[in-house]
């Protein structure tokens, strides 16, 4: 089992109150806790304490949390990560509000990853006893849950090897410079659940966030989200469109600090024996934005 899912995304924002408007009023997350300069947020269909932490001061990623099945899994990962040569440290209960013991890893890409297995379970907004399909009074987009992240790194091949060897992630799709054996890896989309990706990385500077995404149920919900972005003057990057890679439907947009968010629906199901899909550079534009088949320069240059 090992890593179960993306548990939390912790990002920096320049203005906490502007961010609150975006994440709460437009996206429909709920504030579950506040500390000075920090907001802890949860989406309605998530049952763990929080999934997004916003911290005032700067922009970009502070860290990602992935939830593991058991403390034993984490101990096993710790060994593998150390023999891989990455830096780990123990993190103890209470260092992150509501989160239990675990380990903190500085990835080969300089991003910080936390692995934990315990966090307060507060339940979804519909509960688990004879639940309705959705809560009646959702706000804005009413996102049900976070889905995945995409980060940039100088050496995607090493990061892919890290996630495969240390954490048992599998690549669903890979972009390579060519089809011969010594071709380089430009990007990799990797899963630990049954979705097309739980994390993805593309070549770029280390330590940067490209985007983190929210799940929506279908294409109509994506369009509805787009309408709300227009009403709330959200800066939209691309979409609505479809990705060739993951087959998902999407809008990329920016939070009030310029961190890129995505609403994502669709995609396929994966299993540990999923045959990895390969993309070549000549088709990359189609892989990223399937309908227009054109990459805008923001896709590779706008990072936080």
């Amino acid at each position, binding site marked *: 089992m090992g890593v179960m899912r993306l548990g939390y995304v912790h990002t920096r924002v*320049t203005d906490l109150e*502007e961010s609150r408007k975006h994440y709460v009023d437009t996206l429909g997350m709920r504030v579950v806790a506040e500390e000075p300069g920090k907001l802890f947020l949860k989406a309605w269909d998530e049952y763990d304490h929080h999934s997004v932490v916003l911290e005032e001061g700067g*922009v970009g990623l502070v860290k990602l949390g992935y939830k593991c099945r058991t403390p034993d899994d984490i101990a096993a990962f710790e060994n593998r990560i150390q023999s891989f040569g990455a830096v780990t440290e123990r993190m103890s209960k209470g260092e992150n509000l509501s989160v239990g013991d675990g380990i903190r890893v500085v990835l080969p890409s300089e991003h910080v990853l936390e692995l934990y297995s315990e966090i307060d379970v507060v339940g979804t907004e519909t509960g688990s006893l004879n639940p309705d399909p959705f809560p009646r009074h959702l706000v804005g987009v009413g996102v049900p849950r976070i889905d995945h992240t995409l980060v940039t790194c100088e050496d995607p091949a090493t990061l892919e090897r890290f996630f495969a060897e240390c954490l048992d992630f599998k690549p669903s799709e890979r972009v390579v410079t060519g089809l011969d054996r010594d071709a380089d890896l430009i990007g990799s989309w990797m899963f630990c659940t049954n979705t097309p990706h739980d994390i993805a990385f593309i070549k770029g500077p280390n330590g940067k966030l490209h985007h983190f995404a929210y799940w929506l149920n279908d294409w109509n919900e994506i369009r509805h989200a787009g309408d709300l972005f227009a009403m709330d003057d959200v*800066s939209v990057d691309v979409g609505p469109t479809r990705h060739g890679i993951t087959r998902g439907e999407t809008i990329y947009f920016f939070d009030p*600090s*310029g*961190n890129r968010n995505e609403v994502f629906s669709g995609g396929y199901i994966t299993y540990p024996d999923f045959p990895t899909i390969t993309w070549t550079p000549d088709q990359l534009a189609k892989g990223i934005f399937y309908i227009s088949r054109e990459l805008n320069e923001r896709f590779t240059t*706008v990072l936080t």
Partner: protein
Amino acid sequence: MTWLTVAGADVTVELHDREPMLSGLFRSGYAYRVGCKRGGCGICKVDLVEGAVDYPVTVSDEVLAPDERAAGVCLSCRAVPVTDSVIRLREDDRLRCVAPFLAAAVRGGSSGNSSVQKGKD
């Protein structure tokens, strides 16, 4: 109300009260290389040739370093000119008119033309 001129492009637009440079230029039918439009990525940087700007919204020092700011670099999506100002786009970028009718309407429709405006016509 302030006027914003893009040096080298021979374009001057009128900015609304508290309006950032980027917003005023796009609203007037022009475009140039921009990113998040929210102060996070630094793609929209321009150089201030003349004038002065204010940042009503906090911008991160990582995006616009204090020494850059002191040297007149502006984050055009967040910088609000407080006096008539002149900017220059980065060398590898240029101002494009994407809506000529809009640019013409903005030019022809403004009342109380300033000297900057009259000088152009």
